[in-house]
């Protein structure tokens, strides 16, 4: 049964750049997506080899509409700090191997505190 967990004050996220919370034996990371200022929560375990995914970088992903061209995707992704595989912040799908997916969780803010549904 999933329930809302109070994980940290928003100010802590803004200070540290990310929150890594332990909920029911799992580590869940909360990150801010600067494109729309939304909060995203994902399991802190890369489906590739189990690395601490949420300690990676939130960044714009490159695409190339033709060889030699470098453009940026409009949204942010999460790049794993080990091996560099990138994940969609909202769906958890690995953009470099769509057969892989990391669990994502709903996040809400109540009275300046972050709550995660897990």
């Amino acid at each position, binding site marked *: 049964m999933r329930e809302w967990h109070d994980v940290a004050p928003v100010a802590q996220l803004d200070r*540290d*750049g*990310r929150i890594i919370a332990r909920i029911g034996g799992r580590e869940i990371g909360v990150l801010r997506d600067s494109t729309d200022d939304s909060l995203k929560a994902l399991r802190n375990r890369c489906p*590739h*080899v*189990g*690395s*601490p995914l949420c*300690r*990676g*970088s939130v960044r714009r992903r490159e695409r190339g509409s033709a060889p030699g061209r470098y453009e940026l995707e409009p949204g942010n992704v999460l*790049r794993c*700090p*080990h*091996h*560099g595989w990138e994940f969609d912040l909202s769906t958890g799908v690995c953009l470099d191997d769509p057969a892989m997916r990391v669990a994502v969780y709903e996040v809400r803010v109540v009275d300046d505190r972050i709550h995660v549904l897990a």
Partner: protein
Amino acid sequence: MIDCDIHHVVADQDEFLSYLDPGQREWFKTRGDLGLPGYPWSHPFGFALEDGLHEPGYAPGALERIGREALDAYGAEIGILHANDASTVSLMASPYRAAAFARAHNDWVRDRWLDDEPRLRGSILCPAQDPLAAAREIRRAAEDDRFVEVLLCAGSERPYGEPRYLPIFEAAAECGLQVAIHTSGEGMGIAAPGGGVGPHTFYIEWHTVGSATSVMSHMVSLICNGLFERFPTLKVMLLEGGVAWLPGLLWRLDTNWRGLRAEVPWIERKPSEILRDHIRFSTQPLEHTDGNDELLFEMLDAAGGPDILCFASDYPHWDWDDPKHVLTRLPKDWRDRVMHDNAAAFYGERLGLARV
């Protein structure tokens, strides 16, 4: 567990410079990157793991992090240190600068790493572009028995089996040291370009081809030039060039030897047999096989895999292999040998396992 490949960095440049010959210190201080050569391409994000990139005190390759994240976390008995950028000292144009750098680096490793962390062992840097000077440095540094091998970078002017490099191997054999050839520096400074067709455009090309073909070329060169006939006790570990290609290359080499042995008549047995006695490979980066691990290990088994592979994490590089994950991939009856026994036998007494 023995981790055969941990990289350490020069975090405090002034401290390192204090180990350099005073007559050359100013030159090194005023070069970018301590005078070491650079690649023509660059990594798209960075060579180091990005854990904690956004946190204060981010220092991959620092002593405290190596102790905590590479040794403590996995109960590693021993970690073999390999210089990070500094391994390319042998690709500097000036052999005089290179000799001064290598000497300073070896002294700095002894004082700042081996003295402070008893689980670490050192690799001797040497100016391989001047093999006689390299041999002198090897003999000098080898007096400290916490140095367990000579480190050569796989980027080189010529394949290491060439007779010009004999003084290096002779010094290593005489001191009871083995030799590590670690992929790095292909196409850098005075090195031949990696891949053999001209400089790579991208890091992804080097990491796929350049870093593997250099290791392949040295392997074949060492065997064909009869290095192990000259130095029967010598062993060489080839690091970070991958391993999935090994069975194919060995079948190819054995086949060619049958027809072409007139060129190398001192090779009196199959190259693959020489390899099993003298050459070891680090596991990292163990190829990701998209679900074909069974096939990979079946192929490697044909090349002697369980007896020639030695675990390496390559900590703290971006594509390191987590020992826990490697353990889950290795066939059960390979695990003890690959994670520990093969490396213990390779380094032998100098590893000082009794001291741990």
